């Protein structure tokens, strides 16, 4: 369990850090989790025009102002993903979304389709170029600099190529619409595609379900058998022949930041709130450690242990260090070392006494358990159980079906779900 950081301390750490940590947000609980983890910015999708149309419960257009309010109060920038392929019938919605972005004060949109890029730029809405545009060289950066101040590079570049692009921006003095030098953003953590980022048509080909419309069916995440036309099977020791492991750059983050990249993007809009909080917090701490010269092996081992607890397909260093392709995942789902098991619900919180009243429904709760309380307003609370009470009696264990109270400093809400971290054998 990562230590919960108080808000005042979080702000101090944020103000010291130069690197922007951009967290993925798929719903209200993970938005709170991103804020608790110390994100400088969040990115999220609304309606169906984003690359996670199938994977998350996307926000609605009406929720934009609330998202902008919640985040701007915390000094967190907000980026809206509008990065699918766009068809003619999508153009009115795309324009409405951009108008709404402008009205609500969302910081920027992330787009790849030239229709969205050009409309946003005509409206004076800040644009970031999505990884879907696969920017891989300096002249592409130059081309897009007419429209955007921030660009996400293609995921397939080596760190050397990334550095060359960042250096090239300075040498050629490539500035965006704001007049500032173009900033480069790269993916630091999370899922990788087996194809050139997002440009995969497997899902469209087999299920008529286009990854480029945010409806990927993830063919690559399944096990496959190789059988020839005579029915003979080729035995392969890992049947997940198309499923890459997750990208994890925390153990060479010093090299990553050495390229001059200023924004680290964390993948995972389809993942859980505790994933968002853990990954955000680890990378926020690691980036600061690199900047302050206190980045070391022991710390990396600590962060890695936390990252392994939450959803992952095993880790590799992506394409950054020029590894040969072949870091294939051995599993269909997650290789996380821990899983959260639903336990019960919060019935009430007494703010004066800092006590939560819980109903234990699905499994017993013991004094030693590590718990998580997750909710839309709460985000992810990870209180340590110092004492467990049933009515007026202190107990070691609560059986399922009964109520109990625990002391918890962070305010939680009625209806929040309570989980216990359990070891998992992937």
């Amino acid at each position: 369990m990562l230590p919960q950081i108080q808000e005042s301390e979080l702000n101090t750490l944020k103000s010291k850090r130069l690197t922007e940590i951009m967290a993925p947000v798929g719903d209200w609980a993970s938005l709170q989790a991103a804020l608790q983890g110390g994100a400088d910015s969040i990115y999220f999708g609304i309606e169906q025009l984003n690359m996670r149309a199938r994977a998350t419960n996307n926000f609605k257009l009406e929720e934009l102002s609330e998202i902008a309010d919640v985040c701007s109060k915390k000094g967190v920038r907000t980026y809206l993903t509008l990065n699918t392929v766009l068809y003619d019938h999508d153009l009115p919605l795309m324009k409405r979304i951009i108008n709404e972005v402008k009205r609500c004060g969302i910081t920027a949109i992330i787009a790849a389709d030239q229709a969205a890029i050009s409309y946003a730029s005509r409206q004076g809405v800040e644009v970031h170029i999505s990884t879907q545009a696969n920017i891989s060289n300096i002249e592409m950066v130059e081309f897009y600099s007419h429209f955007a101040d921030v660009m996400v590079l293609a995921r397939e570049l080596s760190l050397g190529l990334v550095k060359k692009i960042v250096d090239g921006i300075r040498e050629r003095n490539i500035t965006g619409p704001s007049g500032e030098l173009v900033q480069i953003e790269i993916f630091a953590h999370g899922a990788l595609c087996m194809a050139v980022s997002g440009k995969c048509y497997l899902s469209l080909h087999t299920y008529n379900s286009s990854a480029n419309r945010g409806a990927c069916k993830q063919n690559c995440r399944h096990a496959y058998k190789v059988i020839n036309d005579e029915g003979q099977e080729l035995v392969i020791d890992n049947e997940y022949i198309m499923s890459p492991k997750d990208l994890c750059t925390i153990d060479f983050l010093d090299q990553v930041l050495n390229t001059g990249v200023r924004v680290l993007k964390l993948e995972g809009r389809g993942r859980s709130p505790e994933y968002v909080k853990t990954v955000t917090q680890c990378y926020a701490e690691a980036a600061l450690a690199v900047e302050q010269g206190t980045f070391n092996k022991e710390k990396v081992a600590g962060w890695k242990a936390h990252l392994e607890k939450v959803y992952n397909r095993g880790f590799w260093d992506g394409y950054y260090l020029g590894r040969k392709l072949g870091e294939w995942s051995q599993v269909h789902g997650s290789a996380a070392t821990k899983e959260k098991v639903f336990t019960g619900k919060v019935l009430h919180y007494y703010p004066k006494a800092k006590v939560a009243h819980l109903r234990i429904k699905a499994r017993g709760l013991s004094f030693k358990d590590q718990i998580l309380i997750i909710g839309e307003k709460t985000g992810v609370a990870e209180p340590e159980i110092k004492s467990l009470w049933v009515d007026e009696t202190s107990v070691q264990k609560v059986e399922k079906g009964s109520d109990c109270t625990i002391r918890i400093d962070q305010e939680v809400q009625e209806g929040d779900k309570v989980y216990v971290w359990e070891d998992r054998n992937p």
Partner: protein
Amino acid sequence: MGGPKPMRITFYRSKCIGCNYCVEAWPERWQMSKRDGKCVLIGAKKKGNIHQVQVGEYEREYNERAAAACPVNIIRINQ
């Protein structure tokens, strides 16, 4: 009465990703909304998130084609 049951189409609109395949399968019943880029089931009554319409049996084949083509599986046709 013993006649064939009328055919009922159920459409869970909020999950639509606007891919346009249903429109291509049977444009008489399916149309793309300019307003929000999602599909419209022509003639349907809306109850909450569910849009339903009863249609003649002769449409079955075309609507089944639309349902089969739908990538997010939100078009249901009663048997």
